[in-house]
């Protein structure tokens, strides 16, 4: 791995920053020639009536403002551009007594610092702040790339949910017709459209529990609905695997009821992502990629997700594809900032996909989870860990 794996800790940054700030105030700091040398912490004390910044100048590069709220209201700190309007960086929601860091890439130029106790109004303690030194190389047109990534990802989500709506209907038609063999065949592949965009469904609160809750997730007295309720009916467990209780198949009326609910909940998801104002932020995309891999790590790699059908590897594949799509959407932006991270992620996505492909594909089907040896599961788990660890740096690199 690169230095991404062990980012500098805050104490180190703070200590280095204190030294640099002292030197800067003494007027004897040498000009920095690289962005890395510009790293350092500047303290900001946001009190009831002031916004005391420990330095008025810094050299270009990564700046850390360590903001402490010594007032009694929730506060914010802003670094504003020369025009005093455009926001270069901000920290929000800093409770009284709490400290929080703002990390920005600062180019040479004139800026303003300002605190906003109470989070409304023009703020107080507005002061000039000068960044000297050389221009830091940043990728051009980053905002355009970010905007485009969001547009592309929303389109992808709509496409997947659209396919999910029709696929679910086909699946449920077989199920309601009593054609259990066909329904069993369709079960795992239909779910792939959902598994690819699962973090999106989770962002709508109630929808994911209604659509995708496992039996163990359900509280006593709450109704268990969704895919896994039907899964249990299609892949009925022996009594020994069902807390010693003989499984009672659903009646035709019960099947209809659960099918109607799944149809309605899937439609609600479709309506939500097709709402005119539906959009995603760039960090939601990268966090979605991270979240999908964590889904694999916590549910699929353990066989918990598909406890009756054992089709966990189908979900695994779909989660991995969804993560890859999200990653590819922001890959170029990240590459400009950290090419080593991108190289690592490219390699590990490919490596994990190769490992998984040894067990099948969505087209041809996979090995059932309960037919995997412990060694095989561990090999897959190792691949998930190898990818997840650098992937966990994606958002910080993207928005940092």
């Amino acid at each position, binding site marked *: 791995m690169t230095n991404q794996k062990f980012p500098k800790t805050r104490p180190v940054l703070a200590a280095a920053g204190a030294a640099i700030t002292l030197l800067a105030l003494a007027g004897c700091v040498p000009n920095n020639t690289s962005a890395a040398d510009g790293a350092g912490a500047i303290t900001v004390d946001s009190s009831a009536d002031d916004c005391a910044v420990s330095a008025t100048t810094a050299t270009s590069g990564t700046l850390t403002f360590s903001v402490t709220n010594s007032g009694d209201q*929730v506060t914010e700190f802003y670094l504003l551009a020369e025009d005093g309007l455009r926001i270069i960086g901000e920290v*929000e*929601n800093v*409770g009284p007594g709490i400290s929080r860091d703002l990390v920005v890439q600062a180019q040479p130029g004139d800026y303003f610092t300002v605190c906003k106790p109470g989070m409304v109004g023009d703020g107080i303690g507005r002061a000039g702040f000068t960044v000297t030194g050389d221009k830091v190389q940043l990728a051009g047109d980053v905002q355009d790339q970010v905007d485009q990534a969001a547009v592309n990802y929303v389109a992808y989500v709509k496409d997947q949910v659209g396919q999910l709506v029709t696929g679910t209907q086909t699946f449920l038609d077989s199920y309601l017709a009593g054609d259990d063999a066909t329904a069993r065949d369709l079960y795992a592949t239909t779910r792939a459209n959902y598994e690819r965009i699962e973090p999106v469904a989770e962002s709508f609160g109630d929808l994911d529990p209604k659509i995708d809750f496992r039996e163990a997730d359900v509280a006593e007295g*709450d109704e268990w609905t969704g895919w896994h309720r039907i899964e249990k009916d299609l892949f009925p467990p022996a009594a020994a695997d069902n807390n010693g209780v003989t499984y009672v198949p659903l009646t035709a009326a019960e099947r209809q009821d659960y099918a109607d609910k799944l149809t309605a909940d899937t439609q609600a998801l479709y309506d939500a992502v097709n709402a005119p104002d539906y959009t995603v932020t760039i960090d939601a995309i990268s966090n979605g990629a991270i979240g999908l891999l964590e889904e694999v*790590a916590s549910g699929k790699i353990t066989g918990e997700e598909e406890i009756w059908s054992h089709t966990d590897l189908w979900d695994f594949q779909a989660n991995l594809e969804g993560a890859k799509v999200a990653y590819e959407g922001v890959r170029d932006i990240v590459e400009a900032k950290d090419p080593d991270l991108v190289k690592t992620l490219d390699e590990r996505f490919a490596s994990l996909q190769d490992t998984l492909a040894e067990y099948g594909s969505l087209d041809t089907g996979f090995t059932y989870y309960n037919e995997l040896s*412990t060694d095989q599961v561990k090999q897959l788990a190792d691949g998930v860990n190898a990818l997840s660890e650098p992937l966990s740096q994606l958002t910080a690199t993207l928005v940092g």
Partner: protein
Amino acid sequence: MSDPTTPAPTSSGISRRGLFGLAGAGVVGLGVGAAVDRFALPATASAQENTAVYPFFGEHQSGIVTPAQDRLHFASYDVADISRDELVELLQDWSAAAALMTQGEQAGKFGAVNGNYDAPPDDTGEALGLPASGLTITFGFGPTLFQAADGTDRFGIAGRRPAALVDLPHFPADMLQDALSGGDLCIQACSDDPQVAVHAIRNLSRIAFGRANIRWSQLGFGRTSSTTKAQQTPRNLFGFKDGTANIKAEDTGVVDDQVWASGGDGAAWMAGGSYLVSRKIRMTIETWDRTSLREQEAVIGRTKGEGAPYSGGTEFSEPDFSATGQGGAPLIAQDAHVRLSHPDQNSGAQLLRRGYNFVDGNDDLGRLNAGLFFIAYQRDPREQFIPIQMNLAKNDAMNEYIRHVGSAVFAVPPGARQGGYVGETLFG
């Protein structure tokens, strides 16, 4: 204060059953008063803690409001097919041995090295020369002691089962394993020296062979809560301070209200006792470690460094759940752990927590088999643990990073009078 070699008066009412000759409960005179420095003070501060000695006999069992020690060995037992009299004898033998060991003595009449040369020693010996190290031994009775799973009333006490000793309901996302759950009896051994805690469970298990067998047990390190105001708040394996708002022993009003069962609560024999809920909570360590600091802090609702609530202040500031930030969103999220577990969100219900970190090596997939062995004492689980845990299981953002894999509930009877035994109020 006392010479441990001086024999004390032999207590009455202790059986001489079995191999161990435990009648010589030689320390009944020592069991009064707390934290007696019976050994020369070692040079280091941490070693000084090991000189703590807590009384075994008293109104309440030790190990509940006692300042939480650093180490745990907890064991749950299934009682064999024995008679009521034999069960009582087991409790008597256990109490006698516990009274010795908690005072830094060896178990049995002859201890580890002074017995019959042709017989195995009374005491297993690995704690020889070690101070009491703050050892407390706490006994509890599980629901199945009163009534077996098949409904049999093995010991004629089904009618005396306290209403508060309920079977816990299924909580959302429970992934309980039988082999880590339940039990007829339990013993909690806490100490500042792991060898002393292990020694206690090992000898008590040995005494019980043929009468009760270990069903499951758990080693713990790094107490995950403070039970006294003098203690620093420790950290759990998520790296966050845990137990900041725990019930503290000094808050006697709260302790009386929330921890000790009263005779008027329905089971007179439980007066001065408490109810213990244990939960083995596996943490998905690797996943957590890949989570951004922003999410980690949002899940908890406190800062990781200071432990201050997100609404501001320092560690011991009271969280302000009404404080809002940008867009009117609450600073402490609706699904933050600190909000959902707070008494204000649970009709004032609190728990006295005495949990410990555990790392049981790794699993088949190379993941740390680690987490929190949660222990909570309370007056009535129906009013305290169950509603709090139901609230957490349904809503807590932390659920994404934890699994409940073991669960048990026990009635912890009051402490034994000098010369008596734990459980005498039930069987005597």
